[in-house]
């Protein structure tokens, strides 16, 4: 991949965003010309309830250096309760991932509503900063 051919390493970061809030926030951030790093790749899913831990594992497996899962604030889920279920899963998963040795900064979760374009940009800055500080991820990564 082109990113790896550069002499300067740039992190590969996957953001899994819910359609109704975080994805809308990304749109808004674009509309308002908030700048955020180009190292992130967004995957849109219908709801944070759809965010299977497999997505995160698969991303690391295939070479991601960091993963962020993001959806509506608790109470604001488009479908009522998706993010509440997801919240439990994420709490458990994050601890499990740390237990097997993944640095907590590589796997983050946040709530970003559709109106929070600036928060989206800030979160991305912070995420890229955190992951860049850690360097390339080798853990859980496929041996090609």
């Amino acid at each position: 991949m082109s990113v790896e051919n550069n002499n300067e390493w740039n992190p590969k970061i996957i953001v899994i965003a819910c359609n109704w809030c975080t994805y809308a926030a990304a749109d808004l951030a674009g509309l308002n010309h908030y700048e955020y790093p180009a190292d992130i790749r967004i995957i849109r899913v219908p709801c944070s309830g759809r965010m299977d831990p497999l997505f995160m594992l698969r991303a690391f497996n295939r070479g991601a250096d960091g993963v962020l899962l993001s959806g509506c604030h608790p109470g604001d889920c488009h479908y009522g309760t998706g993010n509440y279920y997801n919240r439990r899963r994420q709490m458990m998963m994050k601890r499990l991932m740390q237990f097997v040795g993944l640095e907590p900064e590589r796997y983050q979760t946040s709530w970003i509503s559709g109106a929070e374009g600036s928060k989206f940009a800030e979160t991305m800055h912070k995420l890229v900063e955190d992951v860049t500080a850690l360097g390339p991820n080798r853990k859980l990564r496929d041996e090609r």
Partner: protein
Amino acid sequence: MKILNKSKLEEVLNRLGENADVYVPMSKGLQSGFYPWKSLEGGKDELMLDALNVYQPPKSVVFPQTERMYSLYQEGKGLKIEETYENDEPRVIFGARACDIKGIICMDEVFLTGGYEESFYKARRESTTIVANACYEPGPSCFCAAMGVDPLNPEGADVIIRDTGDAYIWEALTEKGEALSSTIKDLLEEKELSVPEAKPFIQQVDYDGVAEKLKGMFEHPIWDRTSEACLNCGICTYICPSCYCFDIQVKMYGHEGYRFRCWDSCMYEEYTREAGGGNPRPTGRERFRNRFLHKLEFFTERYGHPLCTGCGRCIVVCPAGINITSIISEAKEADLDA
């Protein structure tokens, strides 16, 4: 006769290791199997030449659990195979028992006969030299002789060693074996030792006529009962020295990737599931039946001897306590009209 004094064993293994990967029976922590001699960590790992056998057979030396076959590269509408990964690095299996070597012979028949020579197996197999360790004292779960294996004179060995206590009698049987012996000839002594006395088998198994009889037992109720406890996990197939079924899969990363093969197990539902969703062996009973019929009947029909080598490993590892010797005797005693 040529003698290898046990005090020289390490030196011999080191010497052999100069030109080849040497796999020896070894215990590593809580597991045991055939591992590279070089990987032995003093204090932690232990050479297991004098144990009856080890948990994992040397099958993976010639037929690794996962083996990359070739790379794939896609460009627009083009498809390229850039490299095939046949591995013919020289290797030595040191101290395998007759049952385990018979397992390799079974695989030879499958992979190297029948109209096609499977090149990945062939490359590994031809570069492998086998040093057999003759068995004089069968364990409680051993029944190799009943399956047509001679524990004293293993078929397929290039060199045979016989444990006399302080030393091994070393005998090269093939050209490959002679070549191996010549690299260590300064470490062998010339001396006459008496061959140990063979002890009788504890486990009595009578396979005579079972293959023939099983032909009429496909729908026999014996399978309902014997398969009930089976969990359909794949332990028995994965630690079996002769089970050879494999799967071919691919890993692509964008436009490049590789195709590999990996062990598969007839115990899994996915094994025979067709693309359209149908499955000729939908429940554990059919899969269980196919495994034992394959071992005891189908393979014998095709290659003239059973696919079971009597090592007794599946009996030792089965979480549900299923015992292939009981199945042989039940088939032997079964009433065909039942």
